């Protein structure tokens, strides 16, 4: 199974997007080898931003949509052909800023799709402006004196919206990222993964994540929404990661 293409990788050398790419290729390869996924039945989409380059490096069905619009096309694909497994790659600029409504409504209707957000907390391809997840005070090109807006909380937002699989992972932890991607693709319903992805050029958070990741304990109850909601934050400032929430509900496509 050859998942690489003739395209040259044009991310910055050392960019954690490469790790997301490797994790995803591994996840797909393992699922295909295990017989839980057919190569021809997977479709990946993306919006526009650094994340979207991933499609050119994937030798599979892909649909490179517009900025902020990676999600509606895969909802259409899933409705048109329910045997497809559909994955939207997106970024924080792409789906927390530009196309936020699609993210929320796909969760509201529990469409059987997967949304993987490359969350680098910055518009990187446009060389450094604040997004909806940039911390307050972030000095970007559009507000050199520092952002005056509080960031959104994507995990809690998606739980409120009705997503039935909510997870966070760190791009640098390729093995865990691959496992969470596999769990998401195996899940029937709207699966959402926020992938912390340091931008090594404009907002390098690698050192922060090195010391501040807290994986969820094994006994975390993924079916308890209240527990999942509170587990997304820790009083010690560490960033909890793992699968916070996973329940089964009728999907949009089943009822259409």
């Amino acid at each position: 199974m050859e998942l690489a293409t003739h395209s040259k990788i044009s991310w910055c050398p050392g960019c954690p997007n490469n790790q997301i790419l490797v994790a995803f290729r591994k996840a797909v390869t393992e699922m295909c080898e295990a017989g839980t996924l057919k190569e021809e039945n997977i479709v990946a989409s993306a919006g526009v931003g650094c994340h979207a380059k991933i499609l050119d490096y994937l030798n599979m069905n892909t649909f490179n949509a517009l900025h902020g619009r990676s999600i509606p096309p895969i909802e259409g694909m899933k409705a048109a052909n329910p045997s497809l497994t559909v994955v939207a790659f997106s970024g924080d600029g792409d789906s927390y800023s530009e196309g936020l409504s699609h993210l929320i409504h796909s969760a509201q209707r529990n469409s059987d799709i997967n949304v993987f957000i490359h969350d680098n907390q910055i518009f990187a391809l446009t060389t450094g402006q604040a997004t909806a997840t940039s911390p307050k005070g972030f000095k970007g090109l559009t507000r050199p004196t520092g952002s005056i807006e509080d960031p959104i909380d994507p995990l809690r937002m998606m739980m409120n919206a009705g997503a039935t699989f909510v997870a966070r992972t760190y791009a640098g932890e390729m093995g865990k990222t691959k496992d969470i991607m596999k769990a998401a693709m195996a899940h029937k319903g709207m699966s959402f993964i926020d992938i912390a992805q340091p931008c090594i050029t404009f907002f390098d958070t690698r050192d922060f994540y090195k010391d501040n990741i807290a994986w969820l304990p094994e006994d975390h109850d993924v079916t308890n929404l209240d527990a999942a909601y509170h587990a997304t934050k820790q009083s010690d400032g560490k960033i909890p990661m793992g699968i916070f929430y996973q329940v089964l509900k009728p999907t949009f496509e089943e009822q259409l």
Partner: protein
Amino acid sequence: MNIWIIPPQKAMHSFFLGYAPFLPWNSGIMRHMETEKNNTPLVTVAVGGAAGDGIKEGGLHLSEIVQHIGCYVYMTPEYPSLIRGGHNYARLTYGDHPVHADHSMLDVIIATNAESVLLHRDGLKNDAVIFIDSPYAEHLKEISQNIVSLPMSEAAKEAGAPHAAGPSVGVGAYCYFAGLSREESEGIFGKVFGDILGGITMNVALALRGYDAAKASGLTPRLVFPIQNTDTQTGVLLEGNKAVALGFLSAGLEFFVGYPMTPASSILHFLAKESAKGKIKVIHPEDEITVINMALGIAYAGKRVAVSTATGGLALMQETFSLAGVSETPIALAISSRQGPATGAATRTSQGDLRFVISSGHGEFPRVVIAPGDPEEAFMAGQIALNFAWKFQTPAIVLLDKQLSESYQTSTVPSGNTEVTPHKKASGGEYLRYQYADDGVSPLAFPGTSNTKVKATSYEHDEFGIASDESDTVRAMQDKRWKKMEGIRSDARHFDTVKVYGDSSAKTAVLFWGSTKGPVLEAAAMIDTPLRLVQVLWMEPFPEEEVAKALDGADQIIDVEVNHNAQLAGLLREKTGIMCDEKILKYDARPFDPATLAKELQDKLKIS
């Protein structure tokens, strides 16, 4: 053959004879001339009242009834943007030959309140009859002697029917006035009162009560058209929106995505009902941007899909329309124009978006835009749009407007008229989504096909579908896409891109498009000067040769449009160099009234 010359007698039911030009123009003379020249009188009836009074339903029932007595009808509902109150009316004009537009001067008004009658006061013919809900009869005594008081709201209340069933009483009274026997009327009521508030039986009872009340009032029936066999109808009552939806279905529609916006909503409503029958799947997502993006995903996955919206919704879809062009994803769009800019006059008509619609999307790529002028043309346009979208893998638009979308006309759409043009299929070997091809059309494959990677993209791309901004690739891919336009132009010649009505050798040509066809055909029937009536249906690709041929030899070209800037006249000049000599433009968010337009045309005619 794409220029359709219609013999005058067929298109017009003869031009008038014996009309002396330059008579003072008023409604009395107009009526006289209609009768004298055509020998085929027209009857115009309005049902008026407040929103929530069942006005449109009353108009629809009357329209079906006159189709049962051998007549042809055109009905326009007019309403403001609100749910209760305000002033709504449904105006229908009928005759024993096809009618292409409703006229403004009323023979009868059926009103559920006094306000409606007062608002139409200047539009009443001298001998007009007013059917009024009884509580308001007293208020109107000063207006006319011909007032018939009917217990509309009272009868509905007594019968336990919804308030909106009241106009059924007026409909029944009208049948008495039109000369139908009580027995004939009852038979027709049973057929036309279908799925409405209160049920069939209740509405038949209300209508019969109206029939009896009109008879008891001492009103003399006015037998304009002899009553013939009432078992059959002259045609199907069809509005542009339903017609375009049927056209999509006839071309193999499998999915429909829409977001409600006047005046396009009823396309979505009709197809949602069809989806309940299991024929197609219909999705109403969160906004117009989602609508078109979802639709592209559906088409990418291999299902025939269409979307609909108003021109404001198309404005929201612009970037994705462009994505359809570059990704070569087949999609058909039904776009209905309403009076802008912005929210504008939300429930009123306009032809002010022609230039916007044909120029949709940033970047340069081929597209199809067809602007039908009546429901039968809208059906064909829907069928053509979906088929062209799939054959040429590019977006295709049917451009309607409020007047065409929501007005009903006696129509004939052949049942079983289906035409599903296949797409170009992949034939083995390494699959390249954007493979260079002599006709510009690359084979189309879908995800789920083994050993096939389908890579579609918004970026300019190589043949495999990987982003590329290399100058050679950028130029070659554009050349590939534009090659498709040659095929589109060639295939378009199988259809009516331009139609000519009236006298095709007349020295005066009238140029028009879209729903303005109706008033132009009606107005021309009131003028005895020979006129060459030229309708442009295809806006993109523009049928330069056909239009030039249709206008060849004309001494005078008069452009008639419902917009401020004469957009078709501008397009004609841009594409052919032909200039219109005169323009008659209306931009008050209402369609032309045939009689008023006839006067304006008469004023513009060169004195010969």
